[in-house]
């Protein structure tokens, strides 16, 4: 039964990482930009949800609103911070995203103070169901299944639709994509919009899972989601999802199976894994980029 619990926790954590990793990978695939502010969109999603909860909406409407607001945040970030910097060297964009991340975090502190706040999703989510003699919250199932559904929808979009093919073409060769008549700025904007919507959605779920939110909550998860994207191969959406689940499981198993004195080293383990992957397998599992990394 303990194993069942570990598996379910792994799926939950993995789903959360996957949702965020997808946003990193989509933007990176097209712009070769690591957007550090992406993690903070999780925080924005969580706080927006906190506000919306006051309105007593039915939860599908709540979820859709969070997705839409996340999309809006993504649009704004692209328009204001990154579009003016198109064509700048790689490191510039990175520093800018770091600046944006700190800006968002400190705005959060300014507005909400650094104190953690309690966060409870509607009653519905706290009901439980019995799975393999384990009590599992509805929330956990929602996290897992909504992630899978969103993932499938996104993959279908990217594989089958005209815009999806355009996004993949732009990610491979931006210049030639323009020769097809593709408006690459729109494609980039779409990547930001989709990625941020998913991150905000993850923020809503994250708050529900852990019961507490604060303005700095997004940074470390964001960093880890980036690591997940690297594991799966930056630029690959399926890779980001796989990476997310691998990371989620690794974390849960690390803490669950090793003696408790080692638990504190979980994060060191995750970051150590990043460095090793970057050195040993820089293209991750599905990546095909020939970019110079090392």
């Amino acid at each position, binding site marked *: 039964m303990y194993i069942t619990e570990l598996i379910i926790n792994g799926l939950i954590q993995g789903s959360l990482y996957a949702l965020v990793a997808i946003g990193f990978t989509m933007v990176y695939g097209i712009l070769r930009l*690591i957007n550090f502010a992406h993690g903070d969109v999780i925080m924005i999603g969580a706080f927006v949800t906190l506000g919306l909860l006051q309105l007593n909406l039915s939860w599908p409407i709540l979820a859709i609103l969070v997705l839409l607001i996340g999309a809006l945040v993504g649009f704004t970030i692209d328009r204001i*911070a990154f579009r*003016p*910097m198109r064509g*700048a060297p*790689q*490191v*510039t964009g*990175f*520093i*800018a995203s*770091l*600046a*944006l991340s*700190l*800006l968002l*975090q*400190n*705005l959060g*502190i*300014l507005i909400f*103070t*650094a104190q953690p706040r309690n966060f409870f999703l509607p009653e519905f989510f706290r009901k439980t169901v019995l799975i393999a003699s384990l009590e599992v919250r509805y929330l956990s199932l929602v996290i897992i299944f909504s992630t899978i559904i969103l993932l499938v929808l996104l993959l279908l979009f990217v594989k089958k639709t005209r815009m999806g093919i355009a996004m993949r073409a732009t990610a491979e060769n931006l210049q030639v994509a323009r020769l097809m008549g593709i408006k690459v700025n729109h494609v980039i904007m779409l990547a930001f919009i989709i990625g941020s919507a998913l991150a905000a959605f993850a923020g809503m779920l994250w708050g529900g899972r852990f019961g507490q939110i604060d303005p700095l909550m997004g*940074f*470390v998860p964001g*960093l880890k989601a*980036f690591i997940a994207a690297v594991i799966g191969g930056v630029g690959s959406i399926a890779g980001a999802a796989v990476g997310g689940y691998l990371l989620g499981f690794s974390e849960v198993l690390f803490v669950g199976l090793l003696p408790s004195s080692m638990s*504190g*080293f979980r*994060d*060191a383990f995750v*970051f*150590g894994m*990043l*460095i090793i992957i*970057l*050195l040993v397998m*820089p293209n991750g599992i599905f990546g095909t980029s020939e970019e*110079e*990394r*090392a």
Partner: protein
Amino acid sequence: MKQKSFSIPAMAILGILGLIFTAVADLMLSSYITSVISFIFLYMILAVSLNITNGFTGLFSLGHPAFMSIGGYVAALLILPVFRKEFFLPDLPPWLAVQQWPFFPAILVGGIVAALVAVIIGYPVLRLKGHYLAVATIGTIFIVRVVLKNTEELTRGALGLNGLGFLSSIWWIYLWLVITVYVAWKLKFSSWGRTMLALRENEMAASCLGINTTMVKIAAFVIGAFFAGISGGLWAHLTTVITPESYSLGLAFNLVVMVVIGGSGSISGALIAAGGISLLVEYLRPLEEALGMYGLGQILISAALLLVLIFRPKGLFGTGELSILRKEITYRSAR
């Protein structure tokens, strides 16, 4: 062949002015203002040393806080009086528990240990490039933090060490500032410095010229880490406290801002930017408390950087230096 360098008279004058300023601060101004100036000097040390790694050599390192932590903890452990060690850290290994060092050597050892760690980390990590190197160095901050939190016998874990001696007088800090600037100056205008710059501009071309790029990169990384370790020790004994969270990514970011705004590769630029920005941060601190608007300073710095990156990405000085300080060196041509 001509090359610009710092003119010795100009630098000497600057050094003496600094000395006079320090004396005035120590003797005549309030201890609060003196400590503010101490912090500004510390930021200058950090910015100039980061410039050696990031600016001269083009290695995008965000790892300074990790090395500050290492240097700070090592120095603190060496300096902490034995009876204090018994109280705080009862499980300390015996050979360490009996140590009680004076200030200067302890700080120095802190820097050296940080440098050694940099060598170990540097070999694998410096093979990465661009933003991947940056992310790996961020990882280093977290790894160091986690290790510090979880080796309670040595570090008292998350509680950290407080009640450290207030030993970092403004004179000590000024001394180290002079040393750092001197090292950076000599480095920049030497053949090592030119090699570093060549590496920054085009690593592949540099290695084709026979330059041992690994050595140069590690050297730049280690020198930067050494001074970061020193600063960590100085900082810990200015604030009298050190915890695993003391030196964060936010600090690393602010240092990068100083280097970027001052112009990567410019020593005087780094000094001016560091001075200006840290002055702003320290000035805003009481304001933030009064208005209850915490985080305002960081917001302003971040916004300022974004604007600079959009409109003036080369910073104030690029690779050059402030003209008053410059002089031309003429090289005799080889025959």
